[in-house]
């Protein structure tokens, strides 16, 4: 039994709302916690590990107070949108080490109803490298655009190829009754949408929604008599990527390091993956993630995503919930990658169910691709 096999995912819950002006961020977190614990057949009293990010500067303490939790293990790792994928790994390691038995991972946000300019608000934080960046106008969005432009230049990747990713995610969203945008779009629609930061069009970008979710990780032993079949955590790894003293290849991602390590730990190969849940902040994020994880060679991502390969029924169904491009993106999306993967592995996805889904790969990307970002890969199995 591997280290990670000592812990399993026992429950998940995706908050159904995409627009919640009548709720607070903490309320969404609490509702998500209730949902995931009910899914697992556990109670709030069982929780002795607690993980969250993005709910405020010292949010884990405030949120613990809100839920009246005094966990013996906690982790507030914030590496952007991939944080919650990392939290699964951290919770599993903590459980395997005996630091806690049942960990709750929670996220909630009202980014949309509070009108946060998530991708286009400009950057102003006070970290040392920022002074060499913020005077020139980086945004989350144009940092990704820098990598996209370079990839197009080096490898001939086209706007049509990027657009096909958005079209595929939207088609999946059409099968998800909770997705924010469900009407089909075409490649021509993507290309006709306004350029927000070249070469990325509006429909190359994730949406902004309210929402949240929760995940319950517990010991394999504790999971034996719970409500749902446990989902196994087969392997995982994390990595960071930055400007590397001014010499980084911008088409390299943290996924290049975390992906192979996670697959090796899980003892599986690319061909074994039935479902990919990839952070899709932008279409380029998906294309580069596939290359960097090794599903295709560097530079071949454009051709790889064409002809329906990422669609349901294709060779590598990806983001079956509609992803951040069409379903939901409350600012940090990593938790939804894991929730959808778990539901697919349990066969609960109705019309968007991947047939005989046995092994799923989740990869979260957090931060800014052209500057600093994180990558976390998880391999889950039923």
């Amino acid at each position, binding site marked *: 039994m591997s280290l990670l096999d000592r812990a399993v995912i026992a429950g998940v819950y995706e908050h159904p709302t995409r627009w919640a002006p009548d709720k607070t961020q903490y309320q969404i977190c609490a509702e998500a916690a209730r949902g995931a614990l009910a899914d697992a057949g556990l109670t709030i009293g069982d929780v002795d590990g607690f993980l969250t990010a993005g709910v405020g500067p010292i949010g884990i303490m405030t949120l613990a107070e809100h839920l009246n939790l005094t966990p013996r293990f906690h982790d507030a790792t914030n590496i952007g949108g991939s944080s919650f994928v990392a939290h699964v790994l951290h919770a599993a390691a903590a459980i395997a080490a005996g630091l806690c038995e049942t960990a709750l991972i929670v996220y909630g946000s009202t980014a949309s109803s509070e009108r946060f300019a998530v991708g286009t608000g400009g950057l102003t934080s006070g970290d040392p490298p920022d*002074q*060499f960046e913020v005077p*020139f106008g980086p945004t989350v969005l144009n940092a990704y655009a*820098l990598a996209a432009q370079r990839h197009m230049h080096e490898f001939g990747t086209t706007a049509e190829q990027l657009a096909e990713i958005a079209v595929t995610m939207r088609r999946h969203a059409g099968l998800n009754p909770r997705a924010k945008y469900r009407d089909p779009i075409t490649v021509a629609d993507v290309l006709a949408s306004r350029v927000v*930061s070249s070469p990325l069009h509006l429909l190359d970008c994730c949406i902004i929604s309210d929402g949240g979710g929760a995940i319950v990780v517990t010991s394999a032993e504790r999971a034996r008599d719970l409500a749902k079949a446990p989902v196994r955590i087969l392997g995982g790894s994390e990595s960071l990527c930055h400007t590397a003293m*001014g010499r980084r290849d911008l088409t390299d991602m943290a996924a290049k390091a975390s992906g192979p390590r996670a697959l090796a730990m899980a003892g599986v190969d690319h061909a074994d993956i039935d479902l990919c849940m990839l952070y899709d902040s932008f279409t380029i994020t998906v294309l580069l993630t596939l290359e960097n994880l090794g599903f295709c060679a560097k530079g071949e991502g454009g051709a790889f995503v064409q002809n329906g390969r990422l669609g349901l029924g294709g060779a590598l169904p990806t983001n079956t919930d509609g992803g951040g491009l069409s379903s939901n993106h409350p600012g940090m999306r990593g938790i939804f990658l894991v929730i959808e993967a778990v539901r697919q592995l349990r066969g609960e996805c109705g019309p968007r169910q991947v047939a005989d889904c046995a092994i799923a790969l989740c990869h979260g990307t957090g931060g800014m691709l052209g500057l600093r970002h994180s990558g976390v890969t998880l391999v889950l199995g039923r």
Partner: protein
Amino acid sequence: MADAKYAKPLPRIDEESKGFWEACQRRELVIQRCAACGALRHYPRALCPTCLSDAVEWVRCSGRGTVYTFTVTHQNQAPGFRDALPYVLAYVELEEGVRLLANIVGCAPEAVRIGMAVQVAFEDATAAVTLPTFAPV
């Protein structure tokens, strides 16, 4: 050069970075080289990330480089940038081999290309801060 009117964020200059910004005020572009192991680095920092030596040399650059990648930004809601749209954010690869982020000026945004030869220019943002920009050669 009216300080009060400058709405974009300014660098928060510190002990590790001031050599770079002081050079900009002299109309010089500099990058750091480790005096112990010779590694070039950008952005500036006090200790070499390769060998952790604190022996720093400032190398005066030619100011010539090429556009490594760029994006024409059409949406940024932050004060200052909102009024400057569209603007070009780019990585410029200097002859010395390191890349730095800057704006490309002196040409239409749609004229910018990867590989385009550029030369540093300097823009006085305020009395205390001069920013490097790059224009086509």
